[in-house]
């Protein structure tokens, strides 16, 4: 019978014990004697969030498809269990074997958002692994970071032995082979790291030192060994139709955020919105073949028993075979009572037709993401959506029976003025007015329309044209949210509009981490020591503790957030090569300031640099 790392007494005491017992359908249990490498794959957040992540499922199935490797899952123990594990000195364990993480060869941690950084330290702490890579002994697991946050790994560089930059499918086999070879030869941890640093996409931060000017900006990077690469080029899967895919994903017992089959239809995005990091770092856009996806859908529904399937991509409407794929899914899923959950599609006659087939129109809502309130500012951020398109889409939708609309905007974008903020209320109002113009009184369900307008705060991210931009202070953010609210209140149809805004404190902190350097690491460590954990959960976010830690560590928040960077400033992340060049990003930054739009990859190649990967849309782009 399966053993558990936690006693029955503990399991019956904590909330949702199913988070910690493993045994789920399609989870993989191997014989530890039969494998050469044991890999703990961690998503540093609670089980329900971590289990919803496609990337981990891809790597989990890839690793376990290799006979000599056993990959297990690890998630952040929730606060109730966290307390017990500390009190009783219980080491963090893998879900499959229920054995300590510290006894495994690797601990891989995926970094999907900056606000998980204290959770990394919780994982290391509970696993009984030293926080600093340089303090880890020979018998400790190699700690690897991956995911979007590794495009600026510097604020957390001290905590990792190595980072894998880019898509995991390509170099892990080589990395693990080198690990086994080094161990067989009797090589040390340092030997392994030195060899690993030679593998494409692998960055070993302890071999580099960052030097600063007196004004605090980066002066240069020094490397410890001559053979080390100066830049780390991201790894990329060139043919996404011929690679690993988790055809038997793990099926959780408890309800998780993404409780469905996920079909990744493409990687990358043609759009090039200037605030969006994903739109740059995942270039070039690569479509997965529709026939392959159809086969995946059928197999995955069979292997999981899920009752829902959804498509995943950055911009599904741009997928060229969308029509064909959806027709197949509607037919195949309808027969089996499987729901199709659609990602945010561009609202037009086609998507409305599809939506009306798979959703209850009365209950579902439509989503538009204009991101900015005026056409001028939408041009600045290169968001192609025009007011005309939005209003036309809304009118079509209202005719089709929809009565709920969600609108997403950002506050604090570069060059933003009061008129742009006023435009948020105005656009919301025009959509409400469109409803009353389009739908005659006797045909209005409940007699009304519901507009939910939400704003988040703009945070400049590395590898975007806005990486040079100044970010607002908390006070400026809150003033903008207040202006937005006021603007909405003054509209004729304000009763039909509900306004939500995001927390400002946490956005400022995210801004520091996003463009931080190695001097931020001690603040993260100190905040963790003073009890910060689960910072992305507002009920656990302790802003006052964070502010005190910055002060006590002598680190200036404004240096990382509000400061506008000069065109030639050296950034902490410049040593990473994501394909897209700095010259292209700077060109886009200048165009943004002049309000000039750039065509998307489909319309006209902008020479961003991703063409060097020679795959996806690039070889055929005009």
């Amino acid at each position, binding site marked *: 019978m399966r053993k558990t790392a936690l006693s029955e007494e503990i399991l019956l005491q904590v909330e949702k014990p199913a988070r910690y017992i493993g045994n789920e359908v399609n989870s993989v249990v191997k014989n530890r004697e039969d494998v050469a490498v044991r890999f703990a794959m961690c998503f540093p957040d609670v089980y329900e969030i971590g289990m919803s992540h496609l990337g981990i499922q891809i790597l989990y199935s890839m690793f376990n498809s290799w006979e000599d490797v056993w990959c297990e899952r690890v998630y952040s123990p929730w606060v109730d269990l966290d307390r017990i594990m500390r009190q009783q000195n219980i080491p963090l364990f893998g879900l499959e074997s229920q054995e300590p993480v510290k006894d495994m060869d690797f601990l891989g941690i995926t970094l999907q958002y900056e606000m998980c950084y204290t959770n990394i330290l919780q994982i290391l702490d509970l696993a009984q692994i030293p926080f600093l890579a340089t303090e880890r002994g020979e018998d400790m697991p190699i700690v690897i970071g991956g995911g979007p946050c590794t495009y600026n790994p510097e604020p957390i560089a001290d905590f990792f032995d190595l980072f894998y930059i880019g898509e995991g499918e390509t170099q892990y086999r080589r990395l693990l082979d080198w690990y086994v070879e080094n161990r067989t030869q009797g090589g040390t941890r340092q030997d392994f790291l030195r060899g690993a640093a030679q593998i494409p996409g692998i960055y070993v931060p302890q071999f580099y030192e960052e030097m600063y000017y007196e004004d605090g900006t980066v002066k240069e990077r020094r490397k410890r060994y001559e053979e080390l690469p100066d830049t780390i080029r991201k790894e990329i899967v060139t043919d996404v139709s011929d690679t690993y895919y988790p055809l038997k994903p793990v099926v959780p017992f408890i309800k998780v955020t993404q409780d469905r089959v996920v079909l990744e239809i493409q990687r990358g995005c043609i759009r090039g919105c200037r605030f969006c990091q994903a739109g740059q770092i995942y270039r070039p856009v690569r479509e997965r073949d529709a026939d392959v996806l159809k086969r995946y859908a059928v197999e995955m529904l069979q292997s999981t028993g899920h009752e829902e399937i959804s498509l995943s991509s950055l911009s599904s409407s741009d997928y060229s075979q969308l029509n064909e794929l959806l027709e197949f899914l509607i037919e195949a899923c309808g027969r089996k*009572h499987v729901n199709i959950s659609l990602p945010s599609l561009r609202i037009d006659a086609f998507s409305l037709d599809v939506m009306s087939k798979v959703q209850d129109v009365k209950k579902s809502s439509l989503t538009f993401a204009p991101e900015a309130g005026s056409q001028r500012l939408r041009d600045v951020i290169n968001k192609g959506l025009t007011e005309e398109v939005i209003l036309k889409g809304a009118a079509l939708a209202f005719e089709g029976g929809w009565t709920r609309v969600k609108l997403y905007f950002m506050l604090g974008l570069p060059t933003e003025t009061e008129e742009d903020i006023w435009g948020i209320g105005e656009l919301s109002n025009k959509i409400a007015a469109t409803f009353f113009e389009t739908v005659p009184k006797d045909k209005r369900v409940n007699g009304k329309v519901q507009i939910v307008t939400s704003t988040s705060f703009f945070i400049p991210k590395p590898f975007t044209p806005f990486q040079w931009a100044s970010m607002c202070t908390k006070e400026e953010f809150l003033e903008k949210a207040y202006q937005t609210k006021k603007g909405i209140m003054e509209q004729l149809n304000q009763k039909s509009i509900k306004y939500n805004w995001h927390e400002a404190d946490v956005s400022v902190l995210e801004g520091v981490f996003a463009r931080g350097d190695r001097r931020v690491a001690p603040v993260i460590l100190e905040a963790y020591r003073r009890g910060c954990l689960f910072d992305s959960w507002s009920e656990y976010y302790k802003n006052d503790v964070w502010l005190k830690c910055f002060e006590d560590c002598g680190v200036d928040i404004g240096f990382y957030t509000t400061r506008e960077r000069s065109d030639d400033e050296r950034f902490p992340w410049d040593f990473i090569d994501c394909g897209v060049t700095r010259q292209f990003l700077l060109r886009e930054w200048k165009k943004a300031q002049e309000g000039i739009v750039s065509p998307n990859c489909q319309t006209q190649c902008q020479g961003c640099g991703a063409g060097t990967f020679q795959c996806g849309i690039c070889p055929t782009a005009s």
Partner: protein
Amino acid sequence: MKIRIKFSKYGIMKYIGHLDMMRFFQKAIRRAGIDVKYSEGFSPHQIMSFAAPLGVGMESRGEYMDIEVLSMTSTQDMKAALDQAMVEGVEILSVTVLPDNAKNAMASVAAASYLLQKKESDYPVDDLSGKLQAFLSQETIPYAKETKKGVVELDLKEGIYELASDGPDAVRMTVNASSSGNIKPGMVMDAFCSFADVEIPAGSYQIIKLETYTDLAGEFVPLDAV
């Protein structure tokens, strides 16, 4: 066609709650390719009902659920397909076709039998068998049940049909499990502790449901024997 499925739940699966077990079976039925009947509407769900929810921490050798199917080859095939879709800790024990006029599983439940197995030692009671007998032969068996509205005084006597020791480390009982008069085994044990003036913490024994019964003309028969 109405189908009754009997299953056991043990080991690591005792940490999975009732609603999650329902979700587990909905997905298992899909994986097994059973031609189950769905409700109408935009979010159709499988027609499925459980006899009684089993609390987290309890094990069972006699759980039941009913489903409706549109077609099937044989109960053997269905059991084999379901077996393939299980995980460690859930076992399909039987698959039975119900008569069309059968009451649903939940409405059918009259009683359940349990084994209360002491985990690490024997029960701390001299002459366990004799004391249980003495306990059961009281005129009334008072039990103060805590509810949301306050404490309610119950008499368990009527609802305890059988109570005996099974060696020094186990107690067996058959009690009322109908929706109106359900008695939890822990309630009986608590009342016994007061009676015998001993302390037996709830966590010190494992509760295993042995069987769920329906009342067939005054006689208790297992739910799959109708």
